[in-house]
């Protein structure tokens, strides 16, 4: 398909000059360019690297660094027809036929390499498997594509592959469809599929980014084990320096399509040479750096901004002949907490634990049972207009800065909108207020006339913050608000949030799955599991002295960005997290919280 590139080179498909001894793959002078409106521009420039047999090479960098493009170029899967390899060689060691230059290979020959010699797994396990084909079918077809095995033998190989990635009851799993499996299981199926044919090279493009932290630990360990068994070389592409430290033998740091630094993992972390590497490492949130930070609240101050008491959120599921309610999702199951002025309460837990639902209930976006008291007024007893007035005090910042700004509105109008809705200030005053907000969040007032697509992710999140600030709320709910940002941007946005807290005396309900970020920003932490709080206390209580096994697991699972502190083994979960969906009348057992002293609450069972 990308013949255009191949034709310009000589001997493209033939044997290339021999590559470095011991190397499986060697990239030299690789340039990938993308055709855009203003002509062709390179997204990877003059990249050279080698991958030794059995080693793990991490390509790390922030968004737009060209790391994924490099991976796609190796597989010849660059988005067509916009992107192409404009120069360079990608040589794969081949014992029988001499080395092959993949950059010039035609589609037919490349097809034989893909899946057989080089396999790839992707970031999104939820969307990377075909929803209408069974797991078995998808596994078997990739085996059949490269071998002459009979259907029965291919099936046997598929079962072996599933067992190798520690999927229980492999045989009956073959009949299942992707939607019946959790994210972690799907990624394991992807790995099984990739490794079924024992390829020389596995390219893993952000394989754990979309997974929960405990599942991430398991998947990374699985990759390490399989590598030890088969001697596969791995190219691991990631933005997460913790994952790099955990996995890499060697590291390539990329920025704007160029290699900034390359070296052994230990050297890169201990003695980074390039300024950019130093900045990148400095920006990485680490558990432990938050300890000892001055806490903005000394004790429970009177007059909490928000008090949540015995909050329940249920979603009814209908079924049966008359479509009656017969099952119920217990998303939030009787949680209580309060947030003091100036305070940051972090709500942590893995996907499906109910943390975002709690936030939505607090912002009035889902119906709930229980009491939510904001600024001393219980929302349950209020009429529509009064509730709207109280809601002014609670604003929200979401995860995806791209999806949470209307692309057809000017950003200035977006920030002014809350003022307009609540009928605050005249037109001129509003635009002055908005201008001041823009300055405050680190943008300039002349940018008010622009549209959201003209900003970067970090800038957009600043716009969202300005919008949340417009009504001078007492509480801002930040739902995974920095998760989608690159680490360097993330660090600056977190700093901004802290500054704003000091300046405007705002309380935050900070929802995150990232324990390191939470440790950096929070005063108090509540850990949620299956809709209930299992542990709550000050940051130091929870992080220095975690008492509930689930909290310990969460903290342990975070990869430490230091190769010297690599964890030996990670305790595996015996089963998946149970479902919060139950039959009507079958209520989940209620956890009782016990005070261990100084407000450190732990669930006892």
């Amino acid at each position: 398909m990308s013949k255009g590139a191949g034709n310009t080179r000589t001997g493209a498909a033939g044997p290339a000059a021999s590559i470095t001894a011991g190397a499986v793959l060697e990239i030299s002078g690789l340039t990938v360019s993308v055709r855009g409106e203003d002509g062709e521009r390179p997204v990877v420039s003059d990249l050279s690297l080698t991958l030794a047999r059995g080693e793990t090479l991490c390509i790390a960098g922030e968004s737009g660094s060209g790391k994924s493009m490099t991976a796609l170029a190796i597989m010849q899967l660059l988005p067509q027809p916009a992107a192409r390899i404009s120069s360079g060689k990608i040589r794969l060691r081949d014992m029988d036929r001499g080395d092959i230059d993949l950059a010039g290979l035609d589609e037919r020959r490349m097809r034989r390499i893909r899946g057989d010699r080089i396999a790839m797994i992707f970031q999104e396990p939820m969307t990377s498997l075909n929803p209408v084909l069974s797991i078995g079918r998808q596994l078997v077809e990739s085996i059949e594509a490269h071998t002459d095995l009979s259907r029965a033998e291919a099936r046997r190989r598929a079962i072996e592959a599933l067992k190798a990635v520690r999927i229980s009851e492999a045989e009956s799993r073959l009949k299942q469809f992707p939607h019946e499996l959790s994210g972690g299981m799907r990624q394991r199926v992807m790995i099984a599929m990739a490794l079924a044919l024992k390829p020389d090279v596995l390219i893993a493009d952000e394989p754990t980014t979309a997974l929960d932290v405990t599942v991430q630990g398991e998947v990374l360990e699985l990759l390490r084990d399989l590598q030890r068994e088969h001697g596969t070389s791995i190219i691991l592409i990631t933005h997460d320096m913790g994952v790099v430290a955990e996995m890499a033998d060697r590291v390539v740091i990329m920025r704007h399509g160029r290699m900034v630094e390359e070296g052994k993992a230990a050297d890169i972390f201990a003695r980074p040479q390039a300024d950019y590497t130093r900045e990148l490492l400095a920006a990485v949130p680490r558990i432990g750096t938050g300890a000892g930070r001055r806490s903005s609240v000394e004790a429970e101050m009177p007059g909490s901004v928000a008090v949540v008491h015995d909050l329940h959120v249920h979603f009814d599921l209908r079924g049966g002949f008359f479509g009656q309610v017969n099952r119920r999702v217990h998303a939030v199951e009787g949680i209580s907490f309060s947030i003091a002025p100036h305070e940051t309460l972090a709500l942590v837990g893995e996907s499906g634990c109910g943390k975002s639902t709690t936030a939505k209930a607090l912002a009035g976006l889902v119906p709930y049972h229980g009491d939510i008291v904001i600024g001393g007024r219980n929302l349950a007893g209020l009429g529509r207009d009064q509730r709207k007035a109280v809601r002014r005090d609670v604003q929200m910042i979401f995860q995806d800065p791209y999806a949470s700004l209307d692309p057809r509105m000017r950003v200035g109008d977006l920030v002014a909108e809350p003022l307009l809705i609540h009928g605050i200030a005249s037109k001129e005053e509003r635009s002055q207020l908005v201008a001041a907000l823009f300055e405050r969040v680190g943008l300039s007032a002349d940018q008010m006339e622009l549209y959201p697509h003209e900003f970067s992710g970090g800038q957009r999140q600043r716009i969202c913050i300005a919008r949340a600030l417009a009504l001078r709320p007492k509480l801002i709910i930040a739902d995974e608000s920095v998760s989608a940002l690159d680490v360097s941007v993330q660090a600056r946005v977190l700093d901004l949030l802290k500054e704003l807290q000091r300046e405007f005396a705002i309380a935050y309900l900070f929802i995150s799955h990232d324990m390191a970020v939470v440790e950096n920003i929070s005063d108090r932490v509540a850990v949620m599991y299956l809709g209930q709080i299992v542990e709550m206390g000050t940051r130091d209580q929870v992080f220095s002295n975690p008492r509930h096994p689930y909290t310990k697991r969460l903290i342990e699972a975070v990869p430490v960005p230091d190769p010297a502190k690599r964890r030996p083994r990670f305790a595996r979960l015996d089963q998946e997290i149970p479902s919060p969906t139950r039959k009507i009348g079958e209520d989940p057992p209620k956890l009782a919280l016990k005070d261990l002293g100084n407000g450190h609450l732990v669930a006892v069972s």
Partner: protein
Amino acid sequence: MIAYLGRRVIQSVLILLGVSLITFALLYLLPADPVRQIAGRSATPETVESIRRQLGLDQPFFIQYWHYLTSLLSGDLGRSYIQRSEVTELIVSRLPASLLLMVGAILCELAIGLTMGLLAAVRRGTATDQTLMVASFVGVSAPQFVVGLLLLYVFAVRLGWFPIGGYGTWRHLVLPSLTMGILGAGWYARMMRSSMIDVLCQDYMRTARAKGLARGAIIFRHALPNAILPVIAMIGIDIGIFMGGIVVVESVFGWPGIGQLAWQAIQRVDIPIIMGVTLVSAFAIVLGNLLADTVAPFIDPRIKLR
């Protein structure tokens, strides 16, 4: 599944009841008088009145409807005013011809439309894509009687490949099916193209390529089943459009189906036949949609019928 089907059948019966009530009311409100048609111009007012009484058309609307409904439930669609025979018999004798035409038309639609859409999506942005899309646009916008006459002129009159009209052999079927199918093919081509382009951009298509599968397997095994889902839902709706089309196409080709029957009945205000044909069409549409919805879970395991 059983519960789902049970509920859908109940819904379908309600829909058919609604259709019968609305059609009956519209025909009742129509300024044309069926009795005048039956009696002829020269009939005396006494004759007209006696015919009216005989047919029960002097009764109030709801009594008339109630009589119709009760005999309908015992399977009786009434007698034709003009043709003096049972409507059920007339429809049953003509239904096979219309069903045959429907099958032919749907096959034409799917064969032409899906192929065009698939090809256009795979060759997206090329001259092939643009040509196919222009062709589909012509198909969508050309009126059926024009297409029918054009096909008749070229393939029957000039080339003599197919008969000009009538019913009997497969040759008779080709031109009417094609006429009916071209309109649908245009819609299906556009729908299939956009659905397919959507699917081709999905992550799992990249996975399929990364596995080193052949192009055919990628397109037919991985993309097609995903892309065809919205098209299947469309086939259910399409039967409605088809029922409108047969009235025109059967008249152009002299095809002895229920469309022709309806056309004659409308001209002569033969209420029992109009009612009968409408109800049979409504039944076909309801059944088509039910089938389309029932087939979907077999293609996409994520769809559960509840």
